[in-house]
């Protein structure tokens, strides 16, 4: 059984420039796939294409099957049913996902209301959703507008919104870049628990190979819109085969050793 099946996905600009080129991947419930690769290689566009959210003028071809629905070419009405219920996304830049004129609490309440909650129950669920992503002072955050929060707080609100949908597939595009490593570690544990308890599938985009190694089982490496290597995350991180992947792992180790040198480890 698969929740997401992408076959030969190609994304072009209106001018015909190919940005994602013949990409295939699949995910079953409870599976976690890491998407890594160069800046500009097509990770975010691929994530957006899963929910039919490509920017205007961009066209997808090939097949994206999400929980049995063909997303490529689907009508907005069809897509609206899939979004949230089958898959929810945490965008790379939380400010673009959050409505600047709406308090965080109301934004999180929306998916919860769709699940039938109201009144006190709803209010309690909103606070619980904020607490779950480790936001201190959930009452204040619920009343805050996006510009009244720190970068990492916004990122956690965006994650809380996506999780409140209880999606079968969570697509998370760089969801922890604004978080300190202590909070990050706890949130990764939270995702881990959801995967095990609810069989949630995760498509996790990240630049941090160590984080990907913690979150994902498998990893797909993208460069210039093409998959260059795919495999078990441990194998890729410890024994990369392709030159690009090797360069990536070498850079990660170089940075790690800069920390070790400076801190005398």
């Amino acid at each position, binding site marked *: 059984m698969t929740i997401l099946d992408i076959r030969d996905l190609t994304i072009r600009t209106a001018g015909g420039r190919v940005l994602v080129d013949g990409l295939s991947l699949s995910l079953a419930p409870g599976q976690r796939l890491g998407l*890594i*690769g*160069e*800046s*500009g290689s097509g*990770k*975010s566009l691929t994530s957006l294409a899963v929910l039919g959210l490509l*920017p205007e003028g961009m066209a997808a071809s090939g097949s994206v099957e999400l929980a049995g629905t063909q997303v490529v070419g689907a009508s907005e009405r069809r897509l609206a049913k899939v979004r949230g219920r089958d898959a929810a996304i945490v965008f*790379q*830049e939380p*400010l*673009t996902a959050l409505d600047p004129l709406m308090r965080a609490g109301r934004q999180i309440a929306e998916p919860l209301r769709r699940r039938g909650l109201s009144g006190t129950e709803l209010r309690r669920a909103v606070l619980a959703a904020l607490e779950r992503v480790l936001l*201190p002072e959930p009452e*204040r955050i619920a009343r805050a507008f996006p510009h*009244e*929060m*720190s*970068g*990492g*707080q916004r990122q*956690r609100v965006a994650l809380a919104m996506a999780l409140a949908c209880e999606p079968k597939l969570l697509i998370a595009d*760089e969801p922890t*870049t*604004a*978080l*300190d*490593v*202590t*909070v*990050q*570690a706890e949130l990764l544990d939270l995702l881990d628990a959801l995967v095990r308890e609810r069989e949630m599938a995760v498509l996790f985009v990240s*630049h*941090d*190979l*160590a*984080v990907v*190694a*913690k979150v994902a089982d498998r990893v797909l490496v993208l460069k210039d819109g093409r998959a260059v290597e795919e495999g078990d995350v*441990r194998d890729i*991180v*410890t*024994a990369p085969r392709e030159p690009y992947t090797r*360069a*990536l*792992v070498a*850079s*990660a*180790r*170089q*940075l*790690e050793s*800069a*920390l070790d*040198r*400076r*801190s*005398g*480890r």
Partner: protein
Amino acid sequence: MTPVLELDRVSFAYRGSAAPVVEDVSLTVADGQSLALVGESGAGKTTLLRLLLGLTRPTSGTVRFGGDELRLGDRELMRRFRRGVQCVFQDPYSSLDPRRRIGSIVAEPLRSLGLETRHTAGPRVAAALERVGLPADAAERYPHEFSGGQRQRVAIARATVCEPRVLLADEPVSALDVTTRVAVVELLNELKREQGLTLVMVSHDLSVVASLCERTAVLENGRVVEEGDTARVLGAPAHPYTTRLVESVPRLPGPRD
């Protein structure tokens, strides 16, 4: 020697909220001694940068630039300030004007400082874009046509195009893949060496902090809980929060474990 930038017993509370988000913070930034601000999400790091930029006025305490109190009303001082200090904001997209082409965005500091005109800025803009690994034709395109990491590099190009003395940068490499991140760290190190750039940088990536900053200050709940030589702070942390921070850094599985 007079510090370039200085926070002297600075506190700050957002209007309408009782609790201050920055409390009694004193920090100095000396020429050539790049400073990292690390700490919990929500600890007040971005707020500190805004105070240093004069975008926010302290509720109490003083912010100084080259020994003089930073006051937006002081025209002469602010001119020197803008000539010497540039910044990269945490959220690159919202800091790039969506209606302007990248070339014009990157040229902005050159124009507003009167160093170049719209017609003469081209070569320096192209050089700045190239240094951060963006193609030359990037200048013709608009911000929405770029990926997250590409936009972050546009912001770095804009902030470094006029050779500032101080760069205030909020998570400047968080959206970059590790290979590009190493290249940008190298670029910043080169600017430190060759142009005497001093960095004040917020980063959750302690490897980047270790690679770029001589000094590190650790914030928790609006207060500086520890400050000192980066090697000392990261190598032999004195505060329990710093210890937790260093210990929580995710590690790559080793080649053979």
